[in-house]
């Protein structure tokens, strides 16, 4: 079996030798060149550019994120081929908008870029999914949906990932969610224990196993009446 061709990092010409950042200013400093390129390419969709602690944050129109990310990924002068993270931030000041954050890296140019999409309070929590460009966004977006309730339109399978499907208390990382949950301990435990661990197949999995009709009659009866198995 012949091997793959190795992709080297930092192959773009005229890159400085990477070094540990020292004495980084709080605000200001050199912005990532991609910010200027984004402004030139997308105009109004780029709301503002900040450089905080040496990292460039580009605030964008969240509805355009898929176009922007696709361009950043495909354009050879940018080539952001690596999606680091998708997450969100809600501030303690409830009037501030919720921020959806995309962290991108360009391996070729050794660049780091943060994209921010703002969702004003009261608007539907919905942004386009970047799964079409980065397959790695699959679980990251599902987690963001699970924790914040942000819907990523275009995601192939957006359902809860860390908490269970029937979780009734809400979205834990929202600021209106108390640290210990909405329900009492006893109620949380009751709900958790009443769940049948074998019943947590998604509908997709159940469709794989649709051998239900072929089970013996008595077994079908028992399963129908919710009898748990295996004890």
């Amino acid at each position, binding site marked *: *079996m012949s*091997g*793959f*061709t*190795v*992709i080297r*990092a*930092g192959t773009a010409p005229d890159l400085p030798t*990477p*070094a*540990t950042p*020292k*004495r*980084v200013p*709080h605000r200001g400093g050199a912005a990532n060149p991609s910010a200027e390129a984004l402004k030139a390419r997308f105009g109004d969709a780029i709301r503002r550019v900040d450089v*905080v*602690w040496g*990292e460039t944050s580009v605030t964008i129109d969240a509805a355009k994120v898929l176009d922007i990310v696709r361009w950043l990924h495909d354009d050879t002068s940018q080539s952001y*081929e*690596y*999606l*680091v*993270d998708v*997450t969100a*931030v*809600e*501030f*303690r*000041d409830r009037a501030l908008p919720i921020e959806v*954050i995309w*962290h991108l890296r360009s*391996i070729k140019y*050794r660049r*780091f870029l*943060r994209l921010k999409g703002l969702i004003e309070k009261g608007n539907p929590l919905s942004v386009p999914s970047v799964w079409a460009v*980065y*397959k*790695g*966004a*699959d*679980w*990251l977006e599902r*987690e963001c949906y699970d*924790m914040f309730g942000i819907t990523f339109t275009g995601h192939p399978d957006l359902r*809860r*990932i*860390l*908490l*269970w499907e029937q979780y009734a208390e809400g979205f*834990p*990382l929202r600021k209106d*969610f108390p*640290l210990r949950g909405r329900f009492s301990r006893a109620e949380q435990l009751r709900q958790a224990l009443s769940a049948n661990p074998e019943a*947590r*197949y*998604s509908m*997709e*999995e159940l469709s*794989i196993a649709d*051998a239900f009709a072929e089970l013996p009659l008595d077994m079908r009866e028992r399963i129908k009446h919710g009898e748990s198995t295996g004890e």
Partner: protein
Amino acid sequence: MAAKRTVEVELSTTGIGADGRPQRVPLVAGDTGGLALQAPPALEPELEGEHMLINIGPQHPATHGVLRLVLELDGETVVRCIPHIGYLHCGFEKIGEYRQYNQIIPWTDRDDYLNCVGNNIAFSLGAEMLFGIEITPRCTVLRVIGMELSRIISHLVWMGTTAIDIGAFTPFLWSFQERENVYNLLEGWVGARLTTSASRVGGMAADIPDGWLDGLKAFVRAFPKTLDECDRMLTKNAVWVGRTVGLGVMSPEEALNYGLSGPMLRASGVDYDVRKDFPYLDYETYDWEVPVGVHGDVYDRYLVRMEEMRQSVRIVEQAMARLPDGPVNVDDPRVILPPKHKATSEMESMIHHFKNVMEGPRPAIGESYVAVEAPKGEKGYYMVSDGSAKPVRWRIRPPSFVNLSAIPKMVEGHLLSDVIAINASIDIVMGEIDR
């Protein structure tokens, strides 16, 4: 559904290919030569049957924690794999919003509990960015030692448990023997074996005690020998090679697109290491190599991890040689507690102590994402501050979460028994995946 199935039963021994890499060579019985390789005559028509649904986990020794995999099997071949996670979801990120920066450090021990020191230091680096603190030269070097020791013990657990999954028990005992040596060192340094909480914002929990470096020197001298023994035991072992070569292949482009990082990404042939490309703690001044695989299979991941341990030893040796004298903690009363005798005798120190403990240090408004090269991959801490003593948002960028998300892609088409080897090669830690 009558999908075509082949059940491959192949006895094999190891040969060395032209590129010096072990290859599977089928055993052929004596004179019959090529006859043994001919397909047997068809005795019965292709069997038809239904796909089977099999559930592994959440409590299963080969899932390295509480991962649950639902597999759709056609005979013994995996047609589809649906992973379920979240069985260890403990709300780390929510708790972080209710704790001061120094108070979060014990939680960083417990998210990736194989790499405690590394996580402590990664978090401190992120918080120091928010506070605008430059750490002292001695602290920088001590942190490098801590991070590399932590990488070694994490890879050792990986080697031991993966060897158990594939059928060898001895490497587990050897690797835990070495882990005990590192535990002793960590215990001498910070007082804990596993959950160390070794660093603080602006410094370390403690300076190394007298004579500690001698213990480290002894470890660094002895450890490569154990590594060589494991190498001799596994690298050209027919069973090991047969059960790892060609499994779970990810091409470099796919690996990047799926967001893999760490040894998973490098085994696929992407020469990306946070320590080289986005350095921190002066890693660019050390002399070491990034091992890169070109086949992207389980075997290359094993080779990459083994080589990383050797490189870590190199880095630790250089760090020991250059360890400067001087203070460990920065001279900044905002974040560092005054020494006890001053806090009880000087008014100013007592005020600093009181304010530091009761209110907590407050960083400027801003945000920082600091990533380090953890044993599993790119581990990042993203913190957002609104100027108060507790972060608005503490986000852990979990490398093994993203690595695990590619498991359906990797296992589909392989045999059920290979799922275990592929899953082991990802080096998952559920504490970090579910947080």
